């Protein structure tokens, strides 16, 4: 897929909670084709401590509105600057980067999308894609507390939403992998993104239930386009770049101890 460097315009920067912001970007030109699971490398301007671009998942693309959504969790100065951007400001992005989640091969497949923390970001766009392709979509979203479960109504547009919170303020109390849903139902495809321990637990569950499982890995990236080889993960084929051969990996390719 052809990659672009674009100066997108901020249409809205919505503070969703203390830590999270939703940036809605638009462009005078039609946004390029982007697949679910892909990401962007965003230039941070005006931060004296941020030197490199920051990788951010494509949260959602609305081609009708010509909108691209990013979900930002503020963890350091770079994401803080992003959360402080105002409508009409511009943001320099390189996209679309990386591979994407793959659709199930059989149309009747049941898909479970498991996200934790900021890892829910790519799942919205993935859910939309899967629903459009006719799959039954179930979301299982986990967070520390109710206020970290963001915009559930958006996910509800594309599937059934189950939640867990660590403090029990929303959905079932505990971690996503402890949700009762996982006892009863059987899913053919499980897609997950979030903290590594969570993804490993999900991978374990998938292995047990013989579901196909794709995870989206994070990594420290310098270029995002396969040029620097800084972002490797160890696979059965040796070191591969997360920014080009990932961020999405089928767990069978990883060397995780699960």
């Amino acid at each position, binding site marked *: 897929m*052809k990659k672009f460097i674009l100066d997108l315009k901020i249409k809205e920067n919505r503070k969703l909670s203390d830590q999270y912001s939703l940036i809605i970007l638009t462009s005078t030109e039609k946004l390029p084709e982007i697949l679910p699971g892909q990401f962007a490398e965003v230039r941070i301007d005006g931060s004296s401590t941020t030197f490199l671009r920051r990788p951010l998942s494509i949260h959602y693309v609305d081609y009708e509105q010509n909108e691209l959504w990013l979900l930002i969790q503020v963890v350091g100065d770079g994401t803080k600057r992003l959360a402080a951007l105002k409508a009409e400001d511009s943001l320099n992005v390189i996209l679309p980067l990386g591979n994407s989640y793959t659709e199930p091969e059989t149309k009747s497949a049941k898909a479970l999308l498991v996200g934790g923390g900021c890892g829910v970001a790519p799942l919205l766009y993935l859910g939309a894609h899967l629903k459009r392709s006719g799959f039954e979509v179930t979301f299982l979203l986990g967070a520390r507390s109710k206020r970290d479960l963001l915009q559930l109504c958006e996910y509800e547009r594309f599937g059934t939403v189950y939640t867990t919170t660590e403090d029990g303020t929303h959905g079932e109390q505990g971690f996503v992998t402890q949700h009762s849903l996982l006892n009863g139902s059987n899913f053919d495809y499980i897609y997950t993104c979030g903290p590594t321990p969570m993804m490993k637990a999900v991978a374990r569950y998938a292995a047990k239930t013989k579901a196909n499982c794709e995870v989206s890995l994070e990594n420290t990236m310098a270029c995002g386009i396969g040029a620097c080889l800084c972002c490797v993960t160890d696979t059965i084929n040796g070191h591969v770049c997360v920014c080009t051969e990932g961020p999405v990996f089928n767990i069978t390719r990883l060397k995780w101890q699960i």
Partner: protein
Amino acid sequence: MANLNINIGRLQLKNPVMTASGTFGYGTEYSDFMDLSRIGGIFVKGTTLRERQGNPYPRMAETPSGMLNAVGLQNKGVDYFINHIYPTVKDIDTNIIVNVSGSTVEDYVETAEKLNSLEKIPAIELNISCPNVKEGGMAFGTSCLSAAQVVSSVRRVYKNELIVKLSPNVTDISEIALAVEAEGADSVSLINTLLGMAINIERRKPVLSTITGGLSGPAVKPVALRMVWQVAKAVKIPVIGLGGIMNAADAIEFMLAGASAIQIGTANFIDPTVSIKVVDGINEYLDRHGFQSVTEIIGALEI
């Protein structure tokens, strides 16, 4: 429009702006963003005799105005390059230069020998910042003796333009430059990365899997510029300058200090089109100052 052509020995460049090894892949990674034929050359990834997996993750740490890397020369080896990569890059209308790395003198020699035969590879760049495994892991480029040794051995087998890339982690870089010049290097490029380190204080662990790594980016520019100036005064062969170049002004600093051409490394990550902007910026500077040719500014620093 000034004349931007420049020669580095027998290497003819349409302009002095090239991209640095390890930061520009094989060029093709950047072809969506820019016309690769607009720059003077592309130094491709560090290539070794045999395939190397490189270092474990994590390999990168951001630092103030720079970054540390510990990629560790991951590449599929010179034969793979010749059979699979060379065919995809040989028709790019610019100089494709292979950065040759190794762990022993023999490694370098064999790799250089294999590249000798490739018609569209006009030069190699010997990366002598690699640890010399037979000498306790000291980098070849940190002593005159081992630097001279690897250069003279490669020189014997390699017929095209031989660029030797110097390590900045030394007391006196001009001494090393003179040593490799004496052994037949056609030109030198500098600097490679400065050895640095970063610690994650919450986990009390080094950030990089290898503990230390190579520092690059604008943070190192003042050191790189000083070394280019020292080396350009010392040697007679052309000098290629690099280290922290982010824009045309930085590139011009290196040329005024004595570099005949420059390479852009880490800056590509922040702006994949930066090299084209540097070409345009140098041209604008030459015009504004009334220079007819870029050769006029090489070493034109007034002391």
